């Protein structure tokens, strides 16, 4: 999950955030890290670029991108599917 945090910070240009500032279970959007809908689209790009996972339905986003942990679990599950 530490790698994923670095990827998120890079992808979203969160210049004033350090990986250790993001809690594993902290909500990424709204009251949590304060991400918005464009960040959500960038996270979709991140999954495609770094993990070769395509999300076709944006409405799945809120569940997948709830926190770093849910995102990591999703990536693991998808990679097991294709393996």
């Amino acid at each position, binding site marked *: 999950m530490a790698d994923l945090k670095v990827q998120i910070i890079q992808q979203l240009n969160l210049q*004033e955030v350090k990986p250790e500032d993001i809690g594993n279970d902290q909500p990424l959007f709204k009251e949590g890290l304060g991400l918005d809908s464009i960040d959500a*689209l960038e996270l979709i790009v991140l999954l495609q670029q770094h993990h070769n996972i395509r999300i076709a339905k944006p409405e799945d986003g809120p569940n997948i991108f709830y926190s770093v942990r849910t995102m990591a679990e999703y990536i693991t599950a998808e990679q097991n599917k294709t393996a």
Partner: protein
Amino acid sequence: MSENAYITSACVIRNNMVTRNGEKVFEEKNAALPEFLRALYDRYSGQYPKFHKMDLLSKLGWAAVEILLQETPMDMYAPEDTGVVLANTSSSLDTDERYYETVSEIASPALFVYTLPNIVIGEISIRHKFKGENAFFVDDRFDIGFIAGYVRQLLETGAVKACVCGWVEQYHTGYEAALYLVEKNARGMALPFTAEQVEKLYR
């Protein structure tokens, strides 16, 4: 015509230098534009992480308004009473090109968002909670007479009580911002709002 409107603050940014109300207030020689803009953010603002996601045009306009409003807070106005009227010559071309470079691989949504010139007005409005009228004009030069006439009409017809207006241009390494706060109430330097005064502060 102009007796009831005043330029209460002005900010010009060019050549790595900032002047406010005609006086030099900041300079950072030899910094490239992104670093220069970051220095402005650190010096005049901070605490606004969304700044780092903006394109250079938005950062320039946004930072100029931070400086413009430093000593002229706008909380006396209702949100819909402050308008923003800007113009430039390169529209959002710089970001258009950057976005286009990403298209062949994975097109970037965060860049596409900034491929419109009026997004800089959106960023300024979000920051300062301005909900008044806004317009963005694309012209081959800073036509001061035109912008001054347009803003004067907004004030005279009561569409807004205050207006942030001027020029925000950026393309590759070239850039220039010249922003003015114009109000019906006199405060700050309270210069009469005429094209000649705007021109004087611009030079």
